[in-house]
């Protein structure tokens, strides 16, 4: 079932998926699981993930599930396969990285507000620019597929810190991608936002729509860059989150108009002009 903003509603409660694979992808991993009961998610939605065993219970940490944007959702002969891109950086991601095929992955989702279609953001939109940083390429992979199927002209820019902190490129194997890396190991040496600035400045008019996900500082740079040039943008944000369904009020993001939004139910995709900053305190914390 879908809500007014295109969000797909989640089956009630938490369910067990079976991990179908969990393979390294550069410095990251792609965790895949079969979702027999769930609906196909919309691009930009996320799931709360926890390993079936060794999570909560007698283990001290991890205790809370972890929020992950879905990177790919593909109908296979065994059911809907969900792909998540992760990096082993803390107790939760470590437990997820250690899951093996056949083990249980507990999920709640799909959750949250997805990306909008380009013309829902800008009536004159002529195409879309996808800008991803590090693990933030995940929701852009499923978005690229969705927009591509609708014939939207697409340009994709991806940036990484260094070789150890990069991966997931197979999610974009279909298509041309502009690359940047801070250490220069791939593509432009520098930030992906350098590429975006050049692209926006080269465009004839502010007719594109920018979709972006990545580290908070990168998102803030994208947001500012788009605002300065009058380009509409949607950003997929990340904050520490306990529940993912509006219960805990922990995932507060300051709004441009004052006050806060709950990123889990009013995001994670937000309009660039909706928020005061894309880097609220605590937003870079992962585990």
């Amino acid at each position, binding site marked *: 079932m879908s809500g007014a903003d295109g969000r797909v509603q989640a089956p*009630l409660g*938490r369910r067990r998926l079976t991990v179908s694979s969990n393979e390294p992808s550069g410095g990251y991993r792609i965790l895949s699981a079969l979702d027999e009961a769930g609906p196909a998610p919309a691009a930009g939605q996320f799931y709360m993930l926890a390993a079936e065993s060794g999570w909560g219970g007698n283990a001290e940490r991890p*205790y809370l599930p972890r929020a992950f944007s879905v990177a790919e959702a593909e109908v296979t002969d065994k059911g809907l396969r969900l792909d998540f891109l992760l990096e082993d950086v803390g107790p939760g991601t470590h437990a997820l990285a250690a899951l093996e095929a056949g083990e249980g992955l507990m999920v709640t989702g799909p959750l949250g507000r997805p990306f909008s279609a380009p013309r829902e953001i800008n009536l004159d939109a002529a195409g879309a620019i996808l800008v991803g940083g590090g693990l933030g390429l995940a929701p852009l992979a499923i978005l690229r597929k969705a927009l591509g199927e609708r014939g939207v002209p697409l340009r994709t820019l991806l940036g990484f810190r260094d070789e150890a902190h990069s991966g997931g490129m197979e999610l974009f194997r279909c298509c041309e991608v502009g690359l940047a890396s801070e250490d220069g190991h791939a593509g432009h040496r520098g930030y992906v936002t350098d590429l975006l600035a050049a692209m926006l400045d080269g465009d004839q008019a502010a007719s594109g729509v920018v979709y972006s996900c990545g580290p908070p500082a990168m998102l803030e740079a994208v947001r500012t860059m788009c605002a300065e040039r009058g380009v509409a943008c949607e950003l997929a944000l990340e904050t520490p989150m306990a529940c993912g369904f509006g219960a805990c009020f922990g995932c507060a993001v300051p709004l441009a108009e004052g006050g806060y939004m709950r990123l889990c139910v009013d995001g994670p995709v937000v309009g660039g002009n909706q928020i005061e900053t894309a880097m609220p305190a*605590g937003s870079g914390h992962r585990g």
Partner: protein
Amino acid sequence: MSASPVEFCGIELEHPIINGSGTFDANAARRVFGDELIAAANFPFSAFVSKTITPAPRPGNPPPRLWEEAAGMINSIGLPNKGIEGFLEHDLPGLGELPVPLIVSVMGTSAEEFTTLIEGVAERPEVDGLELNISCPNVHSGLIVGEQPTETLALLNAVRPLTGKPLIVKLTPNVADPVAIARAAEAAGADAVSLINTVKARAIAPGSSEPWLGAGSGGLSGPAVRVIAVKQVADVAEAVAIPVVGMGGVERGSDARDLLAAGATLVAVGTASFRDPLAGARIRAELAELAMS
């Protein structure tokens, strides 16, 4: 020690598992999960306790608001809410559609503010009872109402005559003697007490000597506080004759059984719902199984 129907302050409940205030937003969850959530067979609690409302809207605390800790978490949410007018207009209609009785949690900084809240809420037909969150300072005395028996007594004396509906007083664990507060609440006519609220806590930001949470400190919840809750619920239940709602780190049916054995009439599930939206239903089922064995 059963999962059977139970009478609480004159309200008939299907079973003894409810939610802790501020740990489940039924209206938001309905947007996420759809109307399945409010089917009587699915709703995880036998009564619903709303998030605390205050007279004026509050934005809540600056982020970060959460910290995962060993076997639990610290929160410093800061009671964001739409204020009583926003609650009555936007939230109450949805809460009125829930398939279970509704208890509205209110917090003021004076007897006058509590009066405004209780008068605004209690007469609404959707509302079956009120929970008084007394973890806030009294603006007149500067004292935290729930930390002082005299303050608790004075507040209840002022507001008890305002409504015939059940008044539940939420107790803090951050006092030397919660029994004294519970006795004061009972003496002034409270219909029930609920405990424990979160335990004051602070986390230090990684690689820093500064507090992690935007508000500096917050409240610890989850399994880490469970045995504190068992002790305080037992002490309070022994000291007062009014019903006790026990909560704190309940994850399993056996945790609920422990609180019922300690003297609680109802058990509230809080942080466990963050991990699993239907934790309340699972805990109830586990409790029923334990009662059979």
